[in-house]
């Protein structure tokens, strides 16, 4: 298989950080960053913005039959997550003992997304994990 490196290793910092844009004219946030605001178009004032990363699962599925690149992961959970600032993104939900649910709160985690065979290039990016509110507070209390 020919390497896809140029396509995915072109400088795409948003692969590794949830950084996008914020239009100060209409106050809408975008991920990935947009060069043109669909509301204000050329009247937009766009600034860079790094998302908090926390969000809510809007909908999800469990994939049993994937494309060749993802076959080794099946079954895996894929969801559309609405970030707290508003934009929605597609991402995998990693191990959740309680099961994935619509409305579940999640946080971003940095993970391997794909590999080009055993010796090929590894792709990294963002997946999401359940945000366990209770354990976070416990941790804070112990600190």
């Amino acid at each position: 298989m020919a390497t896809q490196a140029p396509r995915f290793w072109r400088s795409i910092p948003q692969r590794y950080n949830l950084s996008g844009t914020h239009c100060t004219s209409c106050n809408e946030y975008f991920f990935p960053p947009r060069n043109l605001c669909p509301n204000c178009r050329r009247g937009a004032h766009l600034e860079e913005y790094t998302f908090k990363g926390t969000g809510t699962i809007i909908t999800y599925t469990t994939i049993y039959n994937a494309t060749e690149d993802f076959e080794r992961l099946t079954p895996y959970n894929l969801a559309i997550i609405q970030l707290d600032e508003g934009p929605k993104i597609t991402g995998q939900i990693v191990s959740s003992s309680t099961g994935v649910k619509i409305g579940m709160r999640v946080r971003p985690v940095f993970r391997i997304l794909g590999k080009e065979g055993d010796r090929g290039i590894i792709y990294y990016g963002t997946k999401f994990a359940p945000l366990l509110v209770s354990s976070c507070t416990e941790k804070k209390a112990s600190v």
Partner: protein
Amino acid sequence: MRSVSIIGVGCTKFGERWDVSLRDMIAEAGVMAIEDAEIAGEQIDALYVGNMSAGRFIEQEHIGALIADCAGLSRLHIPSTRVEAACASGGLALRQAVLAVASGYSDIVIAAGVEKMTDVSTGTAADALAAAADREWECFFGATFPALYAMMAKLHMRRYGTTHDQMAQVAVKNHHHACMNPIAQYHMEITVEDVNKSPMVADPLHVLDCSPISDGAAAVVLAPTEVAGRLSECPIKIVASAQASDTLALHDRRDLTTLDATVHAGRAAFTQAGIEPRAVDVAEVHDCFTIAEILAIEDLGFVEKGQGGKAMEEGLTVLGGRLPINTSGGLKACGHPVGATGIKQAYEIALQLRGEAGKRQVDEAEVGLAHNVGGSGGTALVHIFTR
């Protein structure tokens, strides 16, 4: 703008056609349509062909020139254009042909669609189809087409109480219709239980909730309505041709249980035709997955938002019901050679309005609608036809 009519139609058998090539199929469908219209090659002003991905499926591009060549028209040097909008490529080719005739620039124009998908492995075909989604921000994270529609289904179930049994009814109905269609890929009745027992692809969608990988081609011949009556015994008028777009990625949509592109194309089409959705007698809608047909009948205004599942349960859309949908068997059971689908829909509606649909004929069908979607809803086309 001039009124446009269909004066000839042709369609190959859909299915796993290992014995024939893309070239064979497009020639077969084209010749059928030309013979049906009883026109000569010299009368053809232009060709449009919908094809999603011959580059990936058979490693052949430049499909415009290829189809003119295969159809024996190379020495006439007719302009031939390939158009692409993923699974809506066929509908888009029809619209380009309609615009060419309506504008007065061309008189006799052929709109065709073709896809040869079974020359590659299922994995390669699935990957080629995934190119209709957002490669960088959906597929890169592991999204597949069934997964995108599964996520729409999951939210529809949660919001409106739609059940998987109701979705399965779409597949049961379309398989039932396909049994009466000689060109359909599948001639087998299935039950809700069969759908539920088939392997899970992306929860809640099972294998039998998904349209298949298919080969096939279709073609229609268009002419100005003012001369169509002289050229054909039963011309079919195209009274509306509308197209709309939306974000490429599903996650960027306003609402994940509505295809806004369908809503906009549908509204524009009904306005052009000057009719209400309830005036439609028969429709072919884009059922790439069972949930997609439920969304389509809601988004086109045939039923209220959220009532699509219930309509399936009540048998509203089965042959003999108030609004028969996908009498061809739909994408689900007639097959889904992606570039050909939009033209096959027009072919089926033309047969229905001419009264030539055989066992699956809708009584006294006068108004028909075809709805073709690209990707997860980035493109939608709606055409309305009358006798």
